[in-house]
């Protein structure tokens, strides 16, 4: 392992890669700060640029963009109460009240220190957990991979569905359906190509990601413009950041919160589908309970603990979500799904073999995550007052640029104008579904995993002589599928259990 870490350090410390981490963090912060654009859009916009790069360099850039976009999202949450992504919603609970009290600088500093600590602790966990899991997963078979993918999809649908499992499952199925367009890999038969040669290789994942995230998010901002009062309020918030210094008492108050939330965040992040959103809400809830009645009352009114906990947990969860991606080749979130797509486009198959076949990629990505955290703290934090001015860029100029970069990003890969038209079609569809609160992340994950799922299921059936019994005869496969079914029932059973508990409490109160 030490050898691997050293090789990772040597790759990540190359001047070009260090430059890429810095560029990635800046670009990510910049894009993540723009309302509506999150890490998925930020990474998608970077992919065409990285095609000519060495895989390690490209991934290092994307890891930097990922961290930067989350930090940028926290900044817009704190300054203007506009979380770009669900993972930073909990940050705005106490970050925005602190900013309103005139402590925006302090809130940003707390967010940066917490993110750094959470990312650092989680990177250490990742160093230990990823190789261990990679070794174990070498014994996995096609049936287990198929079951793991089912688990990943159901988990994302269960947790990312904004409380509506059926909608999230429908979006997962839509993504799986889109993945079947093109030539069937095993039998060489064209499917759903409508006789068009443009569709014979299927739909490009970059096209779908750009259309359903970057394009539809930009169009969504045009569809629902902000009021003049909101714009004036945001401008005021960017001007008055206040001091960024923290007192010794504040640091002492933050320290245990950071420790607890890092561990919690990392382990939640490792679970497929759970990710930064659940980690941040859970950490917030845990700290509120642990704070006691006096300090607990401050939550939601500008509590330092309330800001530090979700910020630490969401960064730790981001590192955690790389564990299933790097070791099993199965993304646990929309963001890692897009990174998987990028890896595949470099010709690298993530999974247990990545650790053996491309150790430089495996280790340099992990090391660069740590470097990314340092860059964010040392370079981005002092520059926040200047970077925050991006929020003042007029939408009239910004939107056409986002549209242009999205279109050209896809066009420069294929040089096929059909792709531009297909993107517009998908963007309109995604915009309509967004209006009806259908989540996009399960669709993207379904699309990316669809091909692999079909391939693994087909292989498993060939190995088991066309018998479906492998689903319940192999203990590991059966256990993973059982967990998937359990996860599927969580959103259905949780409200019912809550109702029962409330009823029991009321009965007890009446009885007493």
């Amino acid at each position: 392992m030490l050898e691997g870490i050293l090789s990772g350090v040597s790759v990540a410390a190359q001047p070009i890669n260090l430059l890429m981490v810095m560029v990635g963090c800046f670009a990510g912060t910049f894009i993540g700060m723009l309302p509506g654009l999150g890490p998925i859009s930020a990474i998608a916009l970077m992919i065409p640029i990285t095609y000519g790069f060495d895989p390690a360099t490209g991934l290092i850039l994307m890891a930097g963009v990922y961290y930067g976009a989350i930090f940028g999202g926290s900044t817009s949450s704190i300054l203007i109460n506009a979380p770009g992504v669900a993972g930073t919603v909990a940050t705005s609970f106490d970050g925005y009240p602190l900013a309103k009290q005139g402590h925006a600088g302090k809130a940003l500093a707390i967010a940066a220190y917490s993110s750094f600590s959470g990312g650092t602790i989680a990177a250490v966990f990742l160093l230990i957990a990823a190789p261990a899991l990679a070794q174990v997963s070498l014994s996995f078979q096609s049936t287990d991979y198929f079951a793991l993918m089912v688990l990943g999809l159901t988990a994302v649908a269960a947790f990312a569905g904004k409380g509506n499992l059926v909608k999230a499952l429908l979006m997962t199925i839509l993504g799986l359906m889109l993945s079947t367009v093109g030539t069937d890999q095993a039998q060489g038969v064209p499917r759903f190509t409508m006789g068009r040669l443009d569709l014979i290789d299927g739909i490009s994942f970059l096209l779908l990601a750009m259309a359903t995230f970057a394009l539809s998010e930009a169009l969504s901002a045009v569809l629902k413009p902000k009021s003049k009062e909101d714009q004036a309020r945001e401008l005021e918030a960017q001007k008055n950041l206040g001091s960024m210094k923290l007192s010794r008492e504040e640091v002492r108050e933050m320290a245990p919160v950071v420790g607890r939330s890092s561990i919690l965040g990392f382990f939640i992040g490792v679970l497929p589908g759970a990710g930064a959103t659940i980690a941040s809400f859970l950490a917030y809830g845990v700290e509120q309970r642990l704070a006691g009645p006096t300090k607990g009352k401050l939550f939601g009114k500008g509590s330092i603990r309330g800001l530090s906990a979700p910020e630490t947990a969401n960064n730790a969860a981001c590192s955690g979500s790389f564990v299933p991606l790097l070791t099993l080749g199965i993304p646990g979130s929309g963001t890692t799904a897009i990174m998987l797509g990028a890896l595949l486009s470099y010709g690298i198959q993530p999974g247990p073999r990545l650790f053996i076949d491309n150790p430089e990629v495996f280790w340099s990505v992990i090391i660069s995550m740590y470097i990314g955290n340092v860059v964010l703290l040392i370079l981005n934090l002092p520059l926040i007052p200047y970077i925050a001015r991006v929020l003042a860029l007029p939408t009239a100029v910004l939107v056409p640029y986002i549209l242009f970069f999205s279109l050209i990003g896809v066009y420069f890969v294929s040089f096929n104008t059909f792709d531009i038209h297909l993107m517009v079609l998908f963007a309109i569809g995604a915009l309509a579904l967004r209006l009806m609160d259908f989540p996009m992340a399960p669709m993207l994950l379904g699309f990316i995993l669809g091909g692999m799922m079909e391939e693994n299921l087909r292989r498993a059936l060939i190995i088991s002589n066309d018998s479906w019994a492998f689903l319940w005869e192999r203990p590991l496969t059966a256990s993973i599928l059982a967990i998937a079914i359990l996860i599927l029932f969580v959103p259905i059973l949780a409200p019912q259990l809550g109702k029962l508990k409330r009823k029991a409490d009321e009965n007890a109160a009446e009885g007493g």
Partner: protein
Amino acid sequence: MSRDRVGALLLLVFFAAYGYLSTKITLLPFQLNQAFHARTAPQFLTFAGVVLALFLLIRPSDDRPIDTSGMVFTRVALLCALMIFYGFTVRSLGFIASTSMFLIGGFWVMGERRPLVLLGASIPIAFGFWFLMVEVLDVFVAPWPAFLR
């Protein structure tokens, strides 16, 4: 109609069309007897999708209608038209002319009327991006219409 029902109906139509097209996938006679062939996954997905869409249609979790107040549909439609137009012109008119036109049109649709912004934020960007692609990244992109090349 509630937003859940509208969404479910749209998806149901899509799934039905997908299911119909899945029956058109060509299979060789020996493939028909296999446990898993090119139609298996699409047909399973169609079944699952239709069942779930019907469930949402019958039992929507959200009864609120789609709130379209304050939404600017014209602007979105114009931007979409502009993107489609860009798709048609990026090759025929060349990168620089089509990109400049797209950006100027985009700023205009978004309400920008100052000539300095319209021209200054579009033409130099188109030139700069073209230069970056051709000279730095070594990717050839035709700058001008075919008759000027």
